[in-house]
């Protein structure tokens, strides 16, 4: 597939970007937005986005095929990328877009004109939701879906958009942008994709000077650096690194059969995007006291990860990542030799494809990822939360497997503790379109309301 030379990211690697080029791109985007996007009805955008997502789910869709044929460029095996993209695009249906708009604004038409909705009818107040003219996204480097999601929400909110990808991570965003351009060149004309290593002040300052809203994903330091450099009127939405974990209640571990099913769901979460997303579990806490012990559960998870390696291999990773896994394994081998009752580990043979480390010690441990997961024994959720206290402020998702009658209680404990998302184990990397990222409104932070008190 030959992609036309349309975005900055399409330029050959030797091409050097300049602040003047950035400025020109921004002005073009804004102009095109004014012409083609600003007045486009929400319904038309929803139709476009849901249609595009449907295309991406079709096997013969050229962009999908190209992405899968070059999955290594995205950093994943073909099967892992395919599964990740399918799970991602399945969310973009008309119904779900409507649900999102209702959740955020009380109605699907509130970006299109002054309208009344819900409780506002009582004091007789109408309102219009206004969206930023120009959004700048600084994409995360680890997984592609948050960047694609930003583009989708940016289109839905009718903004011109400039996506700055981290080094080496532009492949899928660029392909996605081309698919937009291919399906509707007018919409594609309001979108720009570029790639450079973060911290290029010349280029970034040129971009920030034009922006109305900047969204960014990255480490705390990166976000802080960006925020400090933004003009005061620019709205900033930063998503810092988050960690996630799983919790398996002993009520679902009464038999080997049911435990195996739970282990398969845990494997879904470890395997998805090679565990690289903020929503991927570092640790699976397993409550002891059932017929299947936490250690036995760890063994089941290892068996499941081994099977997945056949159906959905992890693929190649960098030497540094591979070395991190080998080093971590060597460490746990030492620990296991010294306390075999408290530490055990299971590893893929002749590769670093997957690793499970069981520890009786419940202290939360950051994984080195790429399918390296801890299983830790706990007496109850309270112990798990105490053990994870050091990451309390940083937890995004907790994937839970528990008997139906217990889940409500557990979810409430987790919410009060500070987790921003509780979901079934096995669904950790599949947040719905209506997901409130980091506990913030999905669209609400992007927009400005105009109230009209009649």
């Amino acid at each position: 597939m030959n992609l036309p030379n349309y975005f900055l990211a399409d330029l050959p690697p030797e091409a050097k970007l300049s602040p003047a080029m950035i400025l020109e791109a921004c002005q073009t985007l804004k102009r095109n937005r004014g012409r083609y996007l600003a007045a486009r009805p929400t319904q038309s955008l929803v139709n476009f986005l849901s249609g595009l997502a449907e295309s991406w789910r079709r096997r013969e869709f050229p962009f999908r095929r190209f992405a899968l044929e070059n999955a290594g460029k995205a950093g994943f095996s073909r099967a892992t990328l395919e599964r990740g993209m399918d799970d991602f695009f399945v969310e973009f249906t008309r119904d779900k877009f409507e649900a999102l708009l209702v959740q955020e604004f009380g109605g699907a038409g509130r970006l299109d004109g002054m309208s009344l909705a819900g409780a506002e009818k009582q004091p007789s107040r109408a309102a219009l939701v206004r969206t930023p003219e120009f959004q700048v996204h600084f994409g995360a480097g680890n997984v592609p879906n948050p960047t694609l999601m930003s583009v989708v929400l940016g289109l839905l909110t009718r903004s011109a958009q400039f996506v700055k990808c981290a080094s080496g991570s532009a492949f899928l965003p660029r392909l996605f942008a081309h698919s937009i351009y291919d399906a509707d060149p007018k919409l594609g004309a309001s979108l720009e994709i570029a790639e450079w290593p973060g911290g290029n002040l010349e280029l970034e300052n040129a971009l920030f000077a034009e922006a109305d809203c900047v969204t960014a994903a990255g480490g705390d330091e990166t976000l802080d650096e960006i925020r400090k450099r933004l003009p005061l009127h620019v709205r900033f939405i930063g998503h810092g690194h988050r960690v996630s974990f799983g919790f398996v209640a002993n009520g679902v571990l009464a038999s080997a059969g049911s435990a195996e099913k739970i282990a398969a769901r845990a494997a879904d979460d470890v395997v998805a995007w090679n565990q690289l997303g903020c929503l991927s579990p570092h640790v699976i806490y397993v409550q002891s006291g059932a017929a299947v012990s936490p250690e036995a559960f760890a063994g089941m998870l290892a068996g499941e990860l081994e099977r997945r390696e056949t159906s959905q291999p992890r693929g190649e990773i960098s030497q540094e990542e591979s070395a991190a896994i080998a080093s971590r394994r060597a460490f746990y081998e030492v620990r296991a030799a010294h306390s075999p009752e408290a530490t055990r580990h299971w590893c893929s043979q002749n590769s670093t494809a997957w690793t499970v480390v069981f520890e009786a010690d419940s202290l939360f441990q950051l994984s080195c990822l790429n399918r390296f997961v801890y299983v830790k024994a706990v007496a109850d959720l309270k112990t798990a939360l105490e053990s994870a206290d050091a990451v309390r402020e940083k937890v995004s998702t907790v994937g839970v497997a528990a008997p139906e009658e217990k889940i409500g209680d557990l979810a409430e404990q987790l919410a009060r503790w500070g987790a921003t998302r509780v979901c079934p184990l096995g669904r950790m990397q599949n947040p719905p379109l209506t997901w409130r990222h980091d506990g913030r409104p999905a669209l609400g932070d992007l927009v400005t309301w105009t109230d009209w008190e009649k």
Partner: protein
Amino acid sequence: MNQALSDFAARLRALIAIGQPAIAKQQFAELALDLFALQFRSNSAYRKICRAQGATPGSVEHWTQIPIVPTSAFKELELSCIPPEERASVFHSSGTTTQKPSRHFHGVESLALYEASSWRWFLENVLPDLQFKRGAGGAAGSSPSGNPPPAIFLTPPPAQTPRSSLVYMLDVVRRRLGAPATAFVGKINADGAWELNYDALRAALAPGCQAADAPPLLLLGTAFSFVHLLDWLGEQNLAFKLPPGSRVMETGGYKNRSRAMSKMELHALIAARLGVPIVNIICEYGMSELSSQAYDGEKRNAEGGGRSFCFPPWAAARIISPETGREAADGQAGLIRVCDLANVFSVAAIQTEDLGIRRGAGFELVGRASPAEARGCSLMNA
């Protein structure tokens, strides 16, 4: 003290004193197996690791099969053959303050061996043109003839950094060269970080750079201390021209103590601001868990194979593929494993978290296992 280990240490010291050709490959292999048997017996923490792998002196046939210990294990276990009451000092790994450091315990004998190993290989690589006399008795090969160069050390003195193996090694060099204690021009600041005492540095550098017939100078420090030095020279708009024949030894990474720069960039700046040609800039590779160091010395550069680190004949590095655990193919990066016979009283077979590529008889340093901290939180307590 364990007599068998003491005997082994004495034997190795004698071999080191004779110099490079004394330890042929075959002899290294035999010594390594002998030492493994001794350490298996004397180091209970290590023995447990070996037993868990089913490896015993009876089952290990070749030195490459000796069970390795990852450097991280030194954070958790006391991997020492020296009983607590005989431990004279301990070297800690540097690193982030949130992590437990590695601990490598030393006694009188292990320090003597550390000194013999470090000094011998330092001379061979950093000051190869100094002639050695084969003195009589135990002092064989231990001191250079002629005038040793004056030396400046860009680290704090050993009294301020008793846990640093690097500073210990530099102090060995200082003593052997007969340099005064004031040759250390670094200090520890209020945050515990290393910085330079610029007045002392200026006073130390100036005389050698002003006199026309000044002897060559030796300038040693960490990469980040050189960055501090270069930044200071830049701010002060100063440039020194060290006397002809002067040498620079730099070591270690940046560890967020200064801005990071590539080795080429650093060396080019050193050459420009201090007047030391790049061929006279030598890199050292060492760590608290080892008792020997590797250098990419000028001798090796002159051989035309590009810069590569070489350990002394009593230590051997292997490059291990992290994926397969087997020796990496030529040109492939892998984890650096070192079998250091000078680690008599701890564990000889160490696996580092550094990535290297084999280059001729040595290796090129190409990276490091990516730390978990890179993704935002620093939690790893292992």
